[in-house]
């Protein structure tokens, strides 16, 4: 129990991670899949941010006092990069969803699979 309280941030991250991952796998709607993917990525950002925390540490800013205890800034910088990557992924993902909708008229996985299978069967009988 004390373990659970001491590491509450990791349990939060794992819960968020699984919610996002579940949505990616279980949802057939492409937008919901993207939402799940974003939650999944965000949980990893939180994992990194919380590991940089130092007990009683301040923000990592030079104060001139060498004894100041400060948080580890490296994970924060890494996650800044990862956020940029995440935004780019989200942008490409939603752009693809828009194109899929324009082309097929649906963004539901099961309907898409039906249309694609019908097309492939037609193609195979032509060949």
């Amino acid at each position, binding site marked *: 129990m004390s373990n659970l309280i001491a590491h509450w941030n990791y349990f939060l991250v794992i819960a968020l991670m699984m919610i996002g991952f579940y949505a990616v796998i279980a949802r057939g709607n492409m937008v919901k899949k993207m939402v799940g993917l974003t939650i*999944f990525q965000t949980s990893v950002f939180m994992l990194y941010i919380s590991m940089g925390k130092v007990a009683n540490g301040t923000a990592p800013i030079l104060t001139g006092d060498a004894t100041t205890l400060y948080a580890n800034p490296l994970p924060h910088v890494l996650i800044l990069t990862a956020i940029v*990557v995440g935004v780019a992924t989200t942008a*490409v993902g939603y752009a*693809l969803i828009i*194109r*899929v909708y324009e*082309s097929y008229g649906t963004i539901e996985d099961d309907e898409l699979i039906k249309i694609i299978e019908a097309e492939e069967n037609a193609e195979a009988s*032509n*060949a």
Partner: protein
Amino acid sequence: MMQHLPILQVLLPLLGAPLAALLRGRDMAWGLALLLTGAAFLISIILFSQQQMTGETLVYDLGGWPAPIGIVYVIDAASALVLPVISGIAFVATIAARRLVEAEIDARDHALFYAAWLLTIAGMLGQVTTGDAFNIFVFLEISSLSAYALVAMGAGRDRRALPAAFNYLILGTVGATFYVIGLGLLYMLTGTLNLMDLSERLADVQSTRAAFTALAFIALGLFLKMALFPLHFWLVPAYAHAPSAVSALMAATATKVSVYVLIRLVFGVFGIDFPGLADAVGLLVLTLGIAGAFVGTLAAILETDLKKLFAQSSIAQLGYMAIGIGAMSATGLAAAFIHLFNHALMKAALFLAIGAIAAQVGRASMGTIQGAGRQIPLTMTAILVGGLALIGVPLTAGFISKLYLVRALLEQDFWLLAALTFISSALHWPMFGKSLKRLG
């Protein structure tokens, strides 16, 4: 100038990409892409010969910050070998891309196509060169994001490219995120991201459960990226519906880079003595590899579309590389590297030939290549040679890699696995023979 070569071959295509996006006019962007990939190829050859002559590892400190504080680029025996493969195939594919892209992609998208093209090449070269674990992730995402866009550009001719690109994006991002989770755990344990530093500091904490979890996350993420069975479902539609030039570039290089990164992290960072690596992970990779070799080959036998057929066979060939890794021995590793090299060349040749067929007779399926051997003998000869190498017929490159693979398995007395490898190779005959019969 000479000491900046390790960074230059990544930087040239990376900086060329926004420039290519701005260029207008016929063939301007293509010319720039050709120039830059050619330069990257030349640089990687120089680096390869330098490394071979001196036998030393070249280390380049980015911005003059030495490891472990700064990011370093490392040219060692392994990366010096993989770099020319990637940049060479990128160069050849760029030469071929001019006609293929003109035929398949809307003229106003050409500049953007070559921008994404250069970015994906820069990302792959970066992944191979860098000695920093987080930098690998950044380059992985640079190459993947532009690859999703490139695959989606096949939509002009074949709208199935769009859902294929979307599924590739979802699974690719999940794979990359798994890699980052594993990396986070490693950073918590060791406080470093430099690969060499990581392997040294990991030795002290290698029996902790967190270290093994990190290995599991990183390996799983890279299995997804290298399309190891059963995480390969994104690969076939993505390669089959992408523009021909993109299929050739990606089939030859993208998954190989992930195989390389996996080898580098598993053997270079975790090390062969890491608890649970040789038995648990090795056995898993071995089993999935052999299963992939069978599933890929059997699925390929059922395909009528040539692009899908060779994409399915990629699953099988990646399975062979996994078997080499899973053998967890020096010979197995050599086999994996030789097959990585050979398969990159074979698949580049095959997919470029398929692109040439598509340009001449339309879609490359079993129906359309009927009797094409008389119309386009040169292209069909290329497919014949490539296919024979894929099977591993003696006198082809594929034979050498299969030979090493079987030797590595026999070394450890995996008789059954060696026999299964042989059988799955033999199964390539009906897969390929079917297309051969149509040629005459």
